[in-house]
C-alpha cells in the first residue's frame, strides 16, 4: 500500500494511504480524544470530540473519519481545537448527572478524563435534564441512560460484532435514547448479555452489577488468563482487589478476542461461592468428615496400593478432566501409567 507523508503537531509522519488522521497520529504516539470511535467498528464521526485543525481546511474535521492526504499539516491541540472540545464537553455536561463520587465508572470514564484534560467542571449551559428511570432489572448490568452520551458504540457492537442487534437509537432530538425495540426490558429483548456494550461504554451508562462498589479501575490488578468455559479460549483479565475477583476485562489485544460471551464476562463469581470445597473429606459411616491433607492423601495412596497388589494395575482407573490445565492432565495420566495401567480418559466424548 502506498505511503503518505504528512505532519502532525510538527512531527513528520509516514502513514499508509487510507489511514485516518486518528490512526496516523496514534502511530507517532499522539493521543486524540474519542468517544464514539472503536477500532473494529464502522467510523461514524458522531461525537466530534476528536476534531483537529488541518491547514487550509475551513472547518475542524473529525480525525476519526478523515483519511490522511499527502502534505497534510495537522494540529491536534490548538486553542481553536481545545475550544471546540470544551464546547462539546459543556454540552454533554448540560445533561449528565454529576455523581462521579459514587459512579462506578470513575477512573475509567472518558467524560471524566477529558473534562480533566480540558479543565471543564460542569456546564455553562442550563436546560432540561433527562429523567429516564434507572434500570436494574437484568441480572448482569445496570443501565443508567441519563448518563448515556449517545456515542452509539454499544449499538454498533451489538449489531456489527455480536449480531443480535438488541438495542438501537429510539426517538429523536433531546428524547433520543439507546434501548430495545419498543423499550421492552432488556432481558425480554434479543440481548444475550455478552457484555460488549458494557465494555465499550465510555461513561457510566452501562456498568456491571457484580463488583459494584468493590474497586475502582485504578485500584485493581488485572491478571491475564484464559476463560474456563467453552473451547473458544477467549483470553481475559481478571480484575483483582485484596485477593478478590471484582470484575473481568476482555483482552482487546487477543487474536480472536476483545469479545466475550455472558459466561466469560459475567460467570466468574463461582470462584467465591460459599459452596466451594474447603478441606479434604473422608466418608466415615456414610457421612463425610473433614480431614487433613496428609490423612486424605495417605488413604488414597494406601487404597491404590491395595487394589493394585490384590487385583493388578488394570483394576485402577482415572477420569482426567477437560476442565483442568495441561499440567494437571499430564501428571494425571502419568500417575496412572506409572502405576501400570492405561485406564485413563476424560469427558471429551460428553
Amino acid at each position, binding site marked *: 500500500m502506498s505511503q503518505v507523508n504528512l505532519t502532525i503537531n510538527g512531527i513528520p509522519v509516514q502513514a499508509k494511504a487510507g489511514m485516518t488522521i486518528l490512526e496516523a497520529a496514534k502511530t507517532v504516539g499522539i493521543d486524540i480524544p474519542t468517544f464514539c470511535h472503536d477500532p473494529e467498528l464502522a467510523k461514524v464521526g458522531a461525537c466530534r470530540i476528536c476534531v483537529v485543525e488541518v491547514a487550509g481546511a475551513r472547518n475542524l474535521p473529525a480525525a476519526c473519519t478523515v483519511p490522511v492526504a499527502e502534505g497534510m499539516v495537522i494540529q491536534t491541540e490548538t486553542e481553536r481545537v481545545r475550544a471546540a472540545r470544551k464546547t462539546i464537553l459543556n454540552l454533554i455536561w448540560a445533561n449528565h448527572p454529576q455523581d462521579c463520587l459514587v459512579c462506578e465508572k470513575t477512573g475509567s470514564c472518558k467524560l471524566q478524563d477529558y473534562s480533566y484534560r480540558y479543565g471543564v467542571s460542569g456546564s455553562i449551559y442550563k436546560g432540561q435534564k433527562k429523567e429516564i428511570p434507572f434500570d436494574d432489572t*437484568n441480572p448482569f448490568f445496570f443501565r443508567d441512560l441519563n448518563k448515556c452520551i449517545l456515542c452509539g458504540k454499544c449499538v454498533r457492537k451489538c449489531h456489527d460484532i455480536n449480531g443480535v442487534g438488541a438495542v438501537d437509537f429510539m426517538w429523536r432530538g433531546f428524547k433520543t435514547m439507546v434501548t430495545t425495540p419498543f423499550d421492552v426490558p432488556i432481558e425480554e429483548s434479543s440481548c444475550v448479555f455478552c457484555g460488549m456494550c458494557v465494555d465499550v461504554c465510555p461513561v457510566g451508562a452501562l456498568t456491571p452489577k457484580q463488583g459494584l462498589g468493590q474497586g475502582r479501575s485504578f485500584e485493581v490488578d488485572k491478571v491475564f488468563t484464559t476463560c474456563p468455559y467453552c473451547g*473458544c479460549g477467549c483470553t481475559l483479565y481478571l480484575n483483582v482487589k485484596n485477593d478478590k475477583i471484582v470484575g473481568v476485562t476482555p483482552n482487546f489485544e487477543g487474536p480472536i478476542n476483545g469479545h466475550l460471551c455472558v459466561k466469560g464476562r459475567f460467570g466468574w463469581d463461582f470462584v467465591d461461592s460459599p459452596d466451594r*470445597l474447603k478441606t479434604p473429606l473422608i466418608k466415615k459411616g456414610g457421612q463425610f468428615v473433614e480431614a487433613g491433607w496428609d490423612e486424605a492423601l495417605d488413604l488414597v495412596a494406601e*487404597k491404590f496400593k491395595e487394589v493394585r497388589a490384590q487385583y493388578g494395575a488394570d483394576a485402577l482407573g482415572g477420569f482426567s478432566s477437560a476442565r483442568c490445565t*495441561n499440567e494437571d492432565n499430564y501428571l494425571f495420566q502419568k500417575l496412572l501409567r506409572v502405576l501400570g495401567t492405561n485406564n485413563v480418559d476424560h469427558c471429551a466424548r460428553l
Partner: protein
Amino acid sequence: MASLATAFGSGAMTNTIGEIEEADTIFVMGSNTTENHPVIGYRIKRAVRKGAKLIVADPRAIELCEYADVFLQLRPGTNEALLNGLAHVVIRDGLTDEEFIKERTEGYEELKAALEKYTPEYVSEITGVPAADIEKAAHLYAKAKAASFLYTMGVTQHTSGTNNVFTIANLAMLTGNLGKRGAGVNPLRGQNNVQGACDMGALPVVFTGYQPVTNDEARAKFEKAWGVPLSGKPGLTATEMVNAAGKKQLRALYIMGENPMVSDADINHAFHCLDSLDFLVVQDIFMTETAKIADVVLPAVTFAEKEGTFVNTERRVQKVNQAVKPRGQARADWEIIRDIANRLGFDWKYKKAEDVFNEIRQLTPSYAGITYGRLGVTGVHWPCPTEDHPGTPILHVGKFSRGLGKFTPIEYTPPAEEPDEEYPFTLTTGRILYHYHTGTMTRRSKGLGEIHKEEYMEINPADAEALGVAECDMVKVTSRRGEVKTKVKITDRVPKGVVFMTFHFSETAVNLLTNTACCPTAKIPELKVCTVRLEKA
C-alpha cells in the same frame, strides 16, 4: 477425532477461528454455535453480513438458521446420509476438485462407487430434507473458493459418530477444502481444555502428542523418561471403565474435575457401576453429584487460583495465571497428583506448573518449541517443533499429516433407537447459552443462575397441543432407562416428534433417559438420540 486422524493423520481443528470470516461458504452441522461457542457464533454472523453463504444442518431451527442460505433440518441421527447425499451431488454435477483428489488423496474410486445410491431423492427419504435443498447446499459448498466446515457434538454423539466425521472429511477432500485459508474441517471443542487433555495423553491409547502406547518406540521413550516399565495394553475409555466397575473388574477410580453422575448417559446405570467400586476418590471444586458418592473428596482450586496452560479449539496453547490465593485448603490439581505419586513411592520434584510443562515439551514433539515465556497474550498454535518455529495455525498445507488424505466410504446406519408406538418421540440433548455442562459452575454464578433457573424441555406446538400441555406445564418424560419430570417450553425450534433437553440441571437429569449405545470406534454414547414417551404430569 478418530476419523480425522485416519483421514488426514491429525485429529484436530484444521484452521483457525479468525479465518471463519475469510470463508466464502460456511457449513455448520450439529453445532448450536451462537449458544455453545458464542464468540465463534459472532464470527459466523459477521461473515454472513459480509457476504459469505451459510449452510446450517441441524434437527432444530437454531438461531443461525435465521442467517442461513440453506437450512437442512434433518431427522436426528441421519448426518452421514445427508453428507453422502451432498457428496453424491458434488460428483454427479462435476463439482469436484480433480487436481486435489489426484494429487493429495487416495480411495476416490471406492468412495465414488459407494456414493452412487445416495441420490438426493433417496437421501431425502432418510433425512426428511427436501432433495432440492441437498442440491443447493452441495453447490454452495463445492463452488466456494474456500468453504469452512464447522461441527460439534450433534455430529459426534451418535452411534454413527465416527462415520459422520468420515463423511465430512470426504466432502471436504472432494472439494479441495483443506490446507488453505478460510477452509478446513473444524470440530469446535466444547470445553476449555478438551484439546489439551487429549494432547496430554489423557486418553487410554496414547501418551502426549498422540504417541501410541502400543508403539514400542514411544513406550521406550516414556519408560526412559519416567524410569518405570509401562503397559502397552490399551486402556479402557471412560464409558468402558464405568461398565468395568459394574463388573468388579475395575476396583478403584480417581475422578478429577468430572461429574459423570450428571453427564454420563443412563445415570442409573452409571450410579450402579460407580457404587460397585471398592474405592472412589473425587477431586473437584464443589460437592458434585459424583463427589457425593465418593469415599474421599479432595478440594481443588479453580482456574483463577492456579497457573498452567489451556489449549483452545484451534490448537492455540494459552496461559492461565493465578489471580487469587487458593480458597480454604484447596490445592492445585497437579500438586495433589504429585503428592499422591510421592506417597506411592515415586519421586516427583515439580515445584511449579512450569516444571511440568517443561517435561511435557521434552516428551512431545508438537509442543517442543512452546515455552511459558513465548505464550504472551496471544499464545502459540501447535505443532511447534522448535523455539524459533512460529507455530502452525493451518494444518495440512500442501500435504496431509499422514501423506495422502484418505477417502472412507460410509454407509448410513440408523440410530440405536427409533421412534415406535411405545416411545414415539425422539429426545435430543445439548446446552444453552447461560449454562455450561453439568452446571456446577454456572448455577453457582449469581447472574447466570438467576436468568435461567431450571430446565424447560422444548416441544413443538402441535405435539404440545396433542398432549394437552401449555407453556411451563410439567410433563413426565420416560425412556427405556428412566424418567424425569420437567417444565415445557413450546416452540417451533423443534420439529414435530422431536423434543430437546439440556444436561445442566441435576434435578431434571436428562441423562437418566439417554442411551449408552456407543459409537463402536470413538465410544461416544448416543446422547443426541433416544426415544421417549411423554405424559402430562
